[in-house]
């Protein structure tokens, strides 16, 4: 079982705020995820020679221009950027 401290530590690292009432639920969910990895580990497979995704190949796009997003939309998640650019301030 994942401990309460471990959940809080991961939440802290991921900059997530967990309400007191959410901690126990998160513990259970994370435990489920980790044990699923154990399930996958049980599979014996030849990972070197995996077959192609259902035999699909050659998925191409045609060389035709489609509309790009407006600059404002592209920079929306970085508070609008600066002078049309993504902006990274100098750090020391």
């Amino acid at each position, binding site marked *: 079982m994942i401990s309460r401290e471990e959940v809080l530590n991961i939440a802290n690292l991921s900059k997530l705020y967990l309400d007191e009432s959410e901690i126990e639920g998160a513990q259970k969910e994370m435990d489920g995820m980790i044990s699923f990895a154990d399930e996958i580990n049980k599979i014996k497979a030849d990972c070197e020679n995996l077959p192609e995704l259902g035999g699909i190949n050659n998925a191409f*796009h045609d*060389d*035709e221009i489609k509309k790009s997003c407006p600059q404002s939309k592209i920079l929306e998640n970085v508070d609008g950027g600066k002078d049309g650019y993504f902006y990274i301030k100098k750090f020391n």
Partner: protein
Amino acid sequence: MKYDLVVGLETHVELNTKTKIFCNCANKFGSEPNTNCCPICIGLPGTLPKLNRQVVNFAIKAALALNCEVSLVSKMDRKNYVYPDLPKAYQISQFYEPICKNGYIELDSGKKIRINHIHMEEDAAKLVYKSGDTYVDYNRGGVPLLEVVTEPDISSSEEAAEYLEKLQMIMRYIGVSDCRMQEGSIKCDVNVSVKPEGSEKLGTRTEIKNMNSITFMVKAIDYERERHIELIENGGKVEQQTLRYLPETNSTESMRSKEDAQDYRYFRDPDLVDIVLRKDQIEEIRNTLPELPDVRLKKYVNEFGIAEKEAMLLVKYKNVSDYFEKSIKGLKNAKTVSNFIIGQIFRSLETEAEKEEFKILTTPSQMNELVKLIESGKLNMNLAKKALIKMLESGKPVTEFVSESDMQGISPEEMKKLCEEAIKSNENAVKDYLSGKEKALKALLGCVMKQTRGRGNAQEIESMLKGLIR
């Protein structure tokens, strides 16, 4: 001790497709920042890349033109590194199964520079540094590149320059890239090492990144060669590292210690499926390849008798060479066209870019018509050259600038008469000439030429004058 220089080049060639490699945003230089972008090329979670069909076609074309084998199955891989120019923190490239392998470019000396492989990949974003801050423009992120990787077969900076010029020329001929160095559409990473003369074992290499000028590349290689030798001679060791060339001081500085492949944690990109090609598809593309510069060069020298230096100038620029090919149809002497292009037309095209573009008003068929008049003896070279100047200015055909009488030439009798008249009315010049002043003859020649209104042949007139004076 004497040392051998060992150089290998990794050249990034930006492809001139309409769209980016994994999305349908425009592949365009010079747009406002971050305007040719979408969720795929700024790497937002949940998006899926899809390979541009044209990039594959261009890669095949390049492979065939560079004598490579085309892989029937190739795959895309992720190259992991963290830097703001890569929004996904990995670059989609090819590592394990590149699309082309084992080619070569032949230098003029006959030496073959082997190409290890060519792979397709996406370009990173452009970073602009201003007072320590970083500005990122993702327009270039996802622009398709071919990376052409040589074996360490290059043994001088001159060979490196020749290889790069040839590569540039071939890429332009097959129409997959503009290869404009100043716009960064062809860039080079240069691996340099030295070893004791004749030794089999390669020395430790350094890599100079992002060279975008052949002149600077040559200087950088020469500088590194000297630096390595000096280090070794003084009992030091060359450190494997990535360098930046500084043109202002003609030196290099360290960017970081050099990564090896394992540092990039390459692995197969699970978002992209295999590229499977058929042989007939490759042959179809082979049939679309134009005549390549080397073939043209040989033809110009061997069949048309054009001096190699001049033939190289014609071949260097695809538009010039295409113009020349169209202009010479049905002509006896292709050399005349070559002389006009190099001697007259190039004079008005100063920059490399202007020559590359070769935007001139005179069409190939007008040029053909002009040279045909010369070949049939109707127009002499003097008048033809004068007419060509006017043709180039106006875009009008030769018939606009030469009259019927100009085209009739001049009879030997008439020429003799004009020469005799000139001798009569320029007694002083004749005396001077007879007393040994060769130059005096030019005055007489000028006089006759004026009378013929340029129709006469200067050499013929000169020898006739000499004959008459004696």
